[in-house]
């Protein structure tokens, strides 16, 4: 048992620590899914739409003859999607009577220059739709979130809400960025 003798002469602290704790790795690894389980079920509930529209909802924003409710998916700062920049997920629902009249809904930071540049389109259905809004890092803290609704008959209606109200976490993120380009 030459190895054994070596171990007697030089049991380094690291090795002793490893010998003592190596099987406890299993426990640490098991704690991971246990710890994330509440979050997993909360997320599953959210994706089933049972936790409401989202965080910080703004109900019944009047947009011309229609109205829409807007809510950020999560109360958190925008997430980076690699080279495409930062995005913020928003959910929306149309008023029950206007669902069939609205052809498309768009969201943009700042007033759109044209219908072509109305921003990002919502996916889904009038009861629950979502979109991924690009948030430029140089967005000003007092920026407005513009909603454009396009009717099947070609009519257009717009409304705006303060970004700070729709997503306080985004505002905090912008302030932390310090208006960096």
């Amino acid at each position, binding site marked *: *048992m030459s190895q054994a003798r070596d171990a007697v002469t030089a049991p380094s602290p690291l090795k002793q620590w490893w*010998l003592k704790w190596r099987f406890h*790795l299993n426990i640490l690894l*098991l704690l*991971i*899914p246990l710890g*994330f389980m509440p979050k997993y079920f909360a997320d599953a509930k959210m*994706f089933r739409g049972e936790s409401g529209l989202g965080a910080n909802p703004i109900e019944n924003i009047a947009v011309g003859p229609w109205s829409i409710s807007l809510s950020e998916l999560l109360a958190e700062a925008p997430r980076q999607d690699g080279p495409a920049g930062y995005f913020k997920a928003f959910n929306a629902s149309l008023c029950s009577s206007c669902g069939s009249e609205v052809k498309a809904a768009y969201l943009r930071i700042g007033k759109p220059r044209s219908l072509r540049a109305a921003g990002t389109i919502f996916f889904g259905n009038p*009861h629950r739709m979502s979109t991924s809004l690009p948030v430029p890092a140089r967005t000003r803290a007092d920026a407005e979130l513009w909603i454009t609704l396009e009717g*099947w008959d070609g009519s257009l209606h717009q409304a705006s809400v303060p970004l700070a109200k729709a997503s306080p976490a985004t505002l905090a993120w912008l302030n932390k960025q310090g208006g960096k380009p």
Partner: protein
Amino acid sequence: MAQQSKKSKSRLWFLVHSWLALPIWFFVLIVCVTGTLAVVSQEIVWLANPDVRASKPNDDAERLSFQQVLDALKQAEPDMAVRYISQPDGSHFALNAAVTFPDGTAPILYVNPYTGAIQGKSPDFNFEGFTRALHGWWLVPFTNGYSWGWYLVSLLGLPMLASLVTGLVVYKRFWKGFFKPTLRFNHGARIFWGDFHRLSGIWSIWFIAVISITGTWFLIQALLADNHITLSTEPITPVIAREDVPLSDSKAPVPRIDLDEATRIATTQVPGLDVTFAQLPSNAYGHIYLGGRGWYPLMFQTASVNPYTRKVDASFLVGDRSALEFVTESMRPLHTGDFGGLAIKLIWAFFGLLLSMMVLSGLLIWTKRTAQATAAALKRADRTPRATKVTGEAATEMQP
């Protein structure tokens, strides 16, 4: 001398093999067990929940078309929006209809394919989703790109591949085991589990190779996606241009073709397209997206039908894949075994169970061996008082 070095090399391989999974054996075991469950999770739900079964009202009942199902759903729940309808693999499963109710809740409804009746809705606890999430990413949420749990689990593909290779190196002339299967029951637990480990090991060579290689692919897939690299040759399907959507004379939506018409157009224009799912347009500028398994069962074929112009704006068939995609796209179904109906799933589940047992038997062999080695070392330690308690620990470390 050469003999000596060969022997010590084989001993080294033995040590590597013994230690590959050991410190995290319970993690590996749970991943194997949850993977096994995930393979047959759909069938487990089928057994447990009558709502997901496609029961025939009478012997000569015919299956409804997707549009007939959609009409039945509309009649039952006029205010509900339908996102997609899909037929799970196997005609004994009810149709899945993803819907959204006016209150914003978005469950899956189980719909009878013969009558269009809503048999039930997805329960709050999604057994399939849970086992897959536990197996696939250890429940660690996806926040930015792939979850680190995904990396943690998919990294196991590498030691698994290594334990296959070292196991075969250590098990000299393993092919003999095919002709002379040995499983000794009467020589104590240590011998039995050793025989079991070797016997199930050689019969699982192909399965361990498949699972470890495809598991490693999941690691590569995450690395590629998180670095914004795509291997896909799927053509870009432009959303429908604003000019192509006619304006309505009234406030009501412009009529769009129904699912059956879209299916008819797609299957006549795209030869070989089998439609087992239909996704409704996700907004006014979206396509009807149809698809199903191709002649190569590991891949799906799809078509995007423009609901205004009736044109097939895009399709992606088995033959459109690049050689590389044939390999990479085959990885996921090879891992999950969901490409050939119940038979393949049961084979995957059986070998998954065997693999879980191999983790356990490997551990049992190790503890028995180590217990003996430790006892032997302690005995020696009694005789030579100079050696301290550490000797026992060191023996535990070094004995295979």
